[in-house]
């Protein structure tokens, strides 16, 4: 975290100075490890087994926060008799369809789910209750198994388990932070699910100082999933309709009228349609629901790349991204780019994605010839965050406004400017059209006021549209104000209230010392300015704080309402002893101790009866390419539901004892460095950052260096079935900077590959751009559609990679680049 999120890490250091214990679990020794109290090196891709070991430790030593678990989780729920756990099915759960590689989730349901009151056993003794199922499921994740899978010694494991459990419970809470080291796996869902189970068992959810914080690659990636740039979601996590969703009612049939706040989905979707199509959206035309595009299948990034290569995708917008450098199997990405008719790239600098046709690695090797590439590339310079107004949404769902400080230089413009004016021009062109398919564009509300010398649309006007309006045209206070009759509008229901009272709440900057420690007047958090979700769980069943030290939100009997330091995440006047009347729906169907209000049963799900494609509980699978056999479920080497990207350019390695499994015997992982930002469009061209991290290098342990004859600061070539990389002398030293630690994990040596280095073109140096991610396959993704790019297999050679067209070798080995050139 210090490595990739140094600014956020200041709060970790502050916690440390107040006595917090910092535990860092990472294959690599980094800046974070150096300041952490405990560093636990782990084999890349095995986090689920480590977390599973911790769950097993909690359950077998009864270290769970029992009152919390009984009150707020589904531990007491009893499962159907025909559910079969992965323990008894060699790593699969009941309901697996091998043909379709998917699960039928019928057997995962609670027993008696159709009865008025589903069966529960609050003593947690029933053999089919979730708690007992969990105990049996995680029993195989012993400290010895953790050592076998992850390479973590039992002593080190015990130290972490003791530190975590002794700092969790009534008086104390612990937080978990993760980044793309968890999500970029075919088993990312398993890792994060196990973390959620662990935190829930320890009572670390919905309470101050607890939770699981996702730190991600970019500023405001949280914002770009809330108001998504994802193909399968509409704003506010509403699913994108599929071809079968012929009407709004049909689309929402799974949610409307059910228990929990998703029961009001129709309010949210109708308000969204009103925000987009205004007066054109009426009850008679199903609020223009038919205008929305429909999904016909998987349209994720990697499927799109394959479609480009197949010639099915003609045009491509690349905005704030550099797939030629930053995406897995960059070579395949470039093949896709080369097969387009047109490509629009918007970035701060002329990035590799815009220039692949003239100086990409394939041009250098002769695999592609510029004259044969028909892609028409439009490069449009973009404004930086200081040159435009807007909001950032951070990991805590906190929106913070940034004002425009200066006008962007030259032709650079904000993304808002680009899309607004593009839309305006397209609409002008179609204004006279009578073609029905142009109606969605013609009917759009596209009337944002523009300001400044470049006619930049007002970002605050867009925020106001997102925040929502009531029937009188006044900003709504919260999403509970939304209606499904078309009288309200909101661009994203979870953001309702961000412009309450006509004030840009996200622009508030009242200093912390002038307000309570929760600081509710700094920025604005969705939903309803709530800083901690599910905070009803910070009080016990009766509504009293679990402890004075951790008091956060509680029931005030005198006033008959919930109160506390934060905005209660509960209906304000719902008594803790409320029991829903028969036949109630939406939130009215949740009881006074159902703290997890977005769940149908109001409970935190230790066991997920629905919603997860990979299984109701996490199970350990090896990464798609791994040098070892799966020790936990030998019959199930890989995630059985992973998406497989089949293409000749995306060859996969055999794993473990499979034939050929020893060809690529080393685990390799890619990583970032503090000095550069993601694919480098914002940093690799800057001399002050590039001089700090100038060259492409790998880190290996002394053992591997010895085994392969690698020398410190010598050349190395990393080989996979997809590609081979190893920069030339123009890059400066291509170093095998020996890892500072002897590797203690069992199995094979790890290779850590920094994806960051200077862009020597911009820094006045020669440029070579083989990037680490050429190496990575799209080796199949988990059902969360994430790429598996963090753990893979490779071979390593001490030679320098031969570059370009065949010719004489000029510098067979050069150890150092001269200090100045």
């Amino acid at each position, binding site marked *: 975290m210090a490595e990739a999120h140094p600014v956020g890490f200041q709060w970790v250091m502050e916690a440390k100075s107040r006595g917090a214990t910092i535990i860092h679990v990472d294959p690599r020794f980094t800046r974070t490890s150096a300041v952490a109290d405990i560093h636990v090196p782990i084999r890349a891709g095995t986090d689920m087994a480590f977390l599973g070991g911790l769950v097993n430790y909690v359950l077998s030593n009864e270290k769970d926060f029992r009152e919390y678990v009984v009150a707020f989780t589904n531990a007491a729920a009893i499962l159907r008799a025909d559910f079969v756990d992965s323990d008894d099915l060699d790593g699969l759960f009941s309901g697996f369809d091998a043909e379709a590689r998917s699960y039928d989730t019928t057997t995962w349901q609670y027993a008696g789910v159709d009865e008025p009151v589903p069966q529960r056993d609050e003593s947690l003794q029933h053999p089919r209750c979730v708690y007992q199922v969990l105990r049996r499921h995680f029993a195989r994740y012993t400290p010895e198994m953790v050592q076998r899978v992850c390479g973590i010694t039992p002593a*080190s494991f015990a130290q972490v388990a003791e530190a975590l459990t002794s700092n969790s419970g009534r008086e104390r809470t612990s937080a978990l932070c993760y980044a793309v080291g968890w999500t970029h796996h075919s088993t990312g869902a398993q890792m994060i699910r196990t973390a959620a189970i662990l935190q829930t068992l320890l009572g670390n959810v919905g309470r101050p100082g607890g939770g699981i914080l996702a730190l991600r690659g970019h500023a405001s990636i949280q914002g770009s999933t809330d108001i998504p740039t994802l193909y399968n979601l509409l704003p506010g996590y509403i699913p994108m309709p599929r071809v079968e969703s012929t009407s709004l009612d049909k689309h929402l049939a799974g949610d409307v009228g059910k228990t929990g706040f998703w029961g009001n989905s129709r309010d949210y979707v109708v308000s969204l349609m009103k925000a987009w199509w205004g007066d054109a959206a009426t009850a008679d035309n199903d609020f223009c629901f038919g205008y929305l595009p429909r999904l016909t299948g998987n349209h994720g990034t990697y499927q799109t790349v394959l479609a480009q290569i197949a010639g099915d995708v003609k045009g491509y917008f690349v905005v704030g991204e550099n797939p030629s450098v930053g995406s897995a199997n960059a070579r395949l990405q470039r093949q896709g780019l080369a097969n387009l008719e047109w490509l629009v790239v918007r970035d701060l600098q002329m990035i590799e994605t815009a220039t692949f046709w003239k100086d990409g690695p394939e041009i250098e090797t002769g695999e592609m010839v510029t004259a044969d590439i028909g892609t028409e590339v439009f490069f449009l310079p973009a404004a930086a965050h200081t040159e435009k107004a807007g909001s950032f949404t951070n990991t805590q769902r906190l929106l913070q406004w940034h004002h425009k400080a200066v006008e962007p230089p030259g032709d650079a413009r904000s993304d808002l400017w680009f899309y607004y004016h593009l839309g305006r021009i397209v609409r002008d062109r179609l204004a006279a059209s009578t073609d029905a398919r142009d109606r969605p564009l013609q009917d759009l509300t596209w009337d944002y006021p523009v300001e400044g010398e470049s006619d930049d649309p007002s970002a605050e006007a867009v925020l106001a549209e997102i925040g929502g309006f009531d029937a009188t045209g006044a900003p709504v206070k919260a999403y509970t104000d939304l209606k499904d009759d078309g009288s309200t509008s909101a661009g994203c229901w979870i953001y309702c209230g961000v412009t309450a009272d006509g004030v840009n709440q996200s622009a508030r900057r009242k200093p912390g010392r002038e307000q309570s420690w929760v600081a509710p007047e700094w920025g604005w958090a969705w939903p309803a300015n709530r800083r901690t979700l599910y905070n009803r769980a910070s009080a016990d069943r009766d509504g009293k704080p679990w402890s004075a030290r951790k008091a956060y939100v509680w029931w005030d009997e005198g006033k008959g309402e919930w109160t506390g330091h934060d905005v209660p995440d509960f209906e304000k006047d719902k008594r803790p002893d409320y029991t829903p009347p028969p036949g109630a729906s939406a939130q009215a169907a949740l009881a006074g101790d159902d703290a997890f209000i977005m769940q149908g049963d109001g409970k935190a799900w230790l066991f997920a009866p629905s919603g997860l494609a990979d299984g109701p509980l996490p199970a350990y699978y090896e990464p798609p390419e791994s040098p070892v056999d799966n020790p936990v479920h030998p019959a199930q080497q890989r995630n059985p539901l992973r998406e497989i990207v089949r293409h000749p350019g995306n060859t996969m390695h055999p794993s473990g004892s499979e034939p050929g499994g020893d060809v690529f015997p080393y685990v390799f992982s890619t990583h970032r460095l503090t000095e550069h930002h993601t694919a480098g469009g914002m940093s690799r061209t800057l001399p002050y950052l*590039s001089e700090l991290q100038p060259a492409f290098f790998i880190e290996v342990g002394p053992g591997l260096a010895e085994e392969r004859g690698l020398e410190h600061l010598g050349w190395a070539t990393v080989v996979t079935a997809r590609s081979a990389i190893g920069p030339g002398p123009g890059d400066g030293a291509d170093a095998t900077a020996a890892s*500072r630690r002897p590797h203690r994990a069992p199995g094979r040596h790890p290779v850590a590959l920094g994806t960051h280095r200077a862009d020597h073109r911009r820094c006045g140096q020669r440029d070579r751009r083989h990037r680490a991610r050429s190496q990575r396959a799209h080796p199949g993704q988990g059902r969360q559609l994430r790429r598996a790019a963090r753990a893979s297999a490779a071979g390593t050679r001490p030679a320098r990679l031969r570059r370009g067209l065949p010719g004489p070798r000029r510098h067979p080995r050069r150890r150092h680049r001269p200090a100045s050139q």
Partner: protein
Amino acid sequence: MSNRLSGPLADVAGDAGYAAHPSRVGFFTDTSVCIGCKACEVACKEWNAIPEDGLTLTGMSYDNTGALGSDTWRHVAFIEKVAPAGPVAPSAHPPIETSTVDLGMPGSRPPGRDLDAAAAVDVTWLMSSDVCKHCTHAACLDVCPTGALVRTEFGTVVVQEDVCNGCGYCVPACPYGVIDKRPSDGRVFKCTLCYDRLGSGLTPACAKACPTESIQFGDLDELRARADARVASLHEAGVPQARLYGHDPADGVGGDGAFFLLLDEPQVYGLPPDPVVTTKDLPAMWRHAGVASLGLAAGVAACFLGRRP
């Protein structure tokens, strides 16, 4: 006069001739919270428009800067330090007993190569942001023949770029090896403690950019009190190796305007354990030189006297 070259000195700016002046300011760099992000290095270069000085991979952990110099006025060092392996909190690491003093210098073999798993040792990093110390008794200033190096009203030491003639006397005079000649230019450059920002009431760029408050800027007296409290709290928290460096007005340079909290011996960080202002003995040297020249003159005179018949 002896007091102006060494020993404690309460009013540095007053001693330099400022009748009325603001209080002395400086840096307290608390290396125990440094995360090695190098924001200070970048902010310093950005504000002071210092040239980029080479895209060179050093192979020394993640430090590709190397050392302070004419083009690096803040330098975040990554000190590779051997520590016991295993489940022990690094902050609780007892110092390793070795027969020789580890100077923290790079060895002839890559770090880690000499270590095998059975030896049960790990290597960790000590990260610290080094800078010009703005000494109470600054030898660079004392030896400067042109007056390019001056003491400011804030008690800091600044090179006036337009006065420096590049003679280089200051370079060997600095007990810390901070001040450095820029080869392409010939003049010397070093940290100004952002003199141009101080005049406008702004915090120096490095301290402003530091995310963890490892670099703290302020009135020196207040920083010294804060540092004492920080050391006490670290000792209480079980970090007995925490110590201050350069804070003592009684040390060989009369105390530093930029002082540090270290987690090991100063020499491990490449800092002199007992720095002495190199001009300390200047009066004695002149005295000796005077005596010697008088003696010489007397001898010469005696020769002539002796030849008289």
